[in-house]
């Protein structure tokens, strides 16, 4: 294979990784702060796509407006899930929240099927057919937009967690919940903020991908499984781990399909995860369990 083809594979891999990273970041955030495996974020990804679809097709809003609208609505829904379902159940143990998360995913999925029907939808990209071609390597304008927005969101979350007061408080709750409480940090409120942020990220991912991938009410279940595996691989609760994990899995999948065969793509990425987890059970960048 020539260099152009190899570069095209790298671009493809980077793009797949971006989609994984957005969802994995939200998942790991909720897990890091609240120790909840929030599978319901798969449904929020799907709802993000539908909100963007209806905002553009029915309400005539610009696609660029529809993305923050989708983020706002999915963030609000995630907060509601957190307040009404997860928080009351959490005191009874992790198994209950796990079941609840799966339940919410299925309920929202079926609700969407009932409301929107089973038809595949596709949002018209504002960039239409525009693409950048450099030496035979193709990147569509929409892909470039998605990569840019993903980079901004990931940097924003990283910056927010590292340098802002609420971000530092979130990290404190994730690392030392008892100590955080002792210094007066309201962990319940911060937990809801984590839900809101994670929901908004999942909604953003759905809205960003929907002009390039046809979606139906079941799309979220597919997305969430791989993203959750990435979170375990990267280290549960680790934000850099989610990003590195998404990149490793996206690239492993792409280059296995490219140089071996597409049918081995998942096999290779999961084999890589297992090998890493043997060596580092806490995940690539996760903290060792006490």
């Amino acid at each position, binding site marked *: 294979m020539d260099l152009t083809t190899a570069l095209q594979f790298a671009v493809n891999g980077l793009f797949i990784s971006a989609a994984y990273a957005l969802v994995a970041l939200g998942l790991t955030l909720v897990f890091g702060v609240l120790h909840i495996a929030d599978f319901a974020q798969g449904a929020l990804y799907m709802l993000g796509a539908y909100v963007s679809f209806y905002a553009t097709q029915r309400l005539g809003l610009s696609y660029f407006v529809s993305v923050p609208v989708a983020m706002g609505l999915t963030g609000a829904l995630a907060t509601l899930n957190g307040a009404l379902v997860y928080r009351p159940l959490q005191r009874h143990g992790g198994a209950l929240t796990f079941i609840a998360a799966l339940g919410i995913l299925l309920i929202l*999925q079926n609700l969407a099927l009932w409301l929107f029907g089973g*038809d*595949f939808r596709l949002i018209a990209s504002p960039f239409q*057919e525009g693409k950048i*071609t450099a030496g035979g390597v193709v990147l569509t304008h929409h892909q470039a937009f998605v990569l840019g927005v993903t980079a901004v969101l990931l940097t924003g979350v990283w910056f927010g967690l590292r340098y802002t007061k609420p971000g530092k408080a979130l990290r404190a709750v994730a690392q030392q919940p008892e100590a955080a409480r002792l210094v007066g940090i309201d962990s319940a409120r911060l937990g809801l903020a984590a839900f809101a942020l994670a929901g908004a990220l999942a909604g953003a991912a759905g809205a960003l991908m929907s002009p390039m991938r*046809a979606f139906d009410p079941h799309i979220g279940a*597919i997305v969430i499984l791989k993203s959750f595996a990435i979170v375990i691989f990267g280290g549960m609760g680790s934000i850099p781990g989610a990003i590195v994990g998404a990149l490793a899995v996206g690239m492993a999948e792409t280059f296995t399909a490219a140089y071996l065969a597409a*049918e081995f793509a*998942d096999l290779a990425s999961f084999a890589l995860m297992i090998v890493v987890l043997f060596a580092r059970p806490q995940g690539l960048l996760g903290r060792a369990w006490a």
Partner: protein
Amino acid sequence: MRTRRSVLVSCSAALVGVLLLAGGGLPATGGPAVETVTVGFALPLSGAAAREGQESLEGAQLAARLLNEAGGFRVGGRVVRFEIISEDDRCAPAPATEAANRLVARRVQFVGGSFCSSAALAQQPIFAQARIPQVIYAYATDLTGAARQRAGAVLSVRLGPQAAVEMAPLAKYAVTVNNHRRFFAMAQNTDFGRSMIAEFRRVLERLGGGFVAEPEFYTFPGTTDFRTILTKARGSGADALVAIGLVGEMIGVSLQFRELGLAMGFYGSDLLEDPAYQDAVGARADGFFYPWVYDDGVDRRRFTRVEPERMAREMSLAFLNILRKRATRNHGWGWGTIHLLKQAMEREGSTEPERVMRRVLSGARFDLPFGTYGFLPCGQADMRVGVATYVEGRRTLLVDRDFAGRPPAVLSATDLCPR
């Protein structure tokens, strides 16, 4: 102590009960007895193929509703009505097995489905053991071949095309009309995907063409990004791509094919004629080729229609008038099942499942949404499909159903029932 009146009431109720059990229904005010035939549908009602499954079910429900509202139809001396029940097989073997067992437990007399090959293969032995005739819609060759024989599923038939019926005319069109001989192949890694690719390859090689590399089989469900496979196709030196997947996948493949600027021919299955595909891809599918199965007479064509396709028109009008939407191929599966059973029952003068299916398999022809045809001894519909494309975003039928059989013939009835 019971009064004489209460004894009389009890006796009357018991008599009515006995009559109901013996006759299967109450005589309608001195008219013929009414019999209800229960047809169970094992279909993907959720998951990756939910839309296809729901449309199939909708077709069956509308067909049954119209027949029932017209007072049913006469079989022997009785009036027959249909009852439709359904179970979700989620297009996968494990839930398909559960769905089949539930339908057996619900004592259905006939089964329609599945739409998905892997699901139908899992269900076939269960229905065979329960002696429940199965009208299958999936395309995997084995369903009317080795798997049917292994399961002893002598009462199962396939309502529409199998992989060879779809792929033979398409491969022939590629080679003899478009002069596309060197192909790159990709498909979902399922019985459906593998069967379709194998049949396409068989005809392609028979006509002097071939694959430039081994086919790429991607994970199903779960694959949404096809750019890497398409990048391989771009650098493969092939004249054309053949891609097989469900509607959602084909939308992704088609859009990404255009995105990457691939300058080669594009061939797919008849799922490219799905309205959801047309809506999403539009004119970007111009020049893509695929087999056409369903023809309600309204699309542009480049040949004179030979067969009247009466049932396709009837179904199309019913959908427009009652449900205010255009019928699709998927609706045809359910609608066709009900009408196949109705016609076979009327001709046989019985609703007894084994007799009805013997009539279906007798070689007699039936009016169905995909033409007028009979069934071969292996259970395969002895039907053919044509080839279509898109021109300015509109479906255009290029050749008729007889194309594969014309010289050089690439498909005959013996190809459909391999020994």
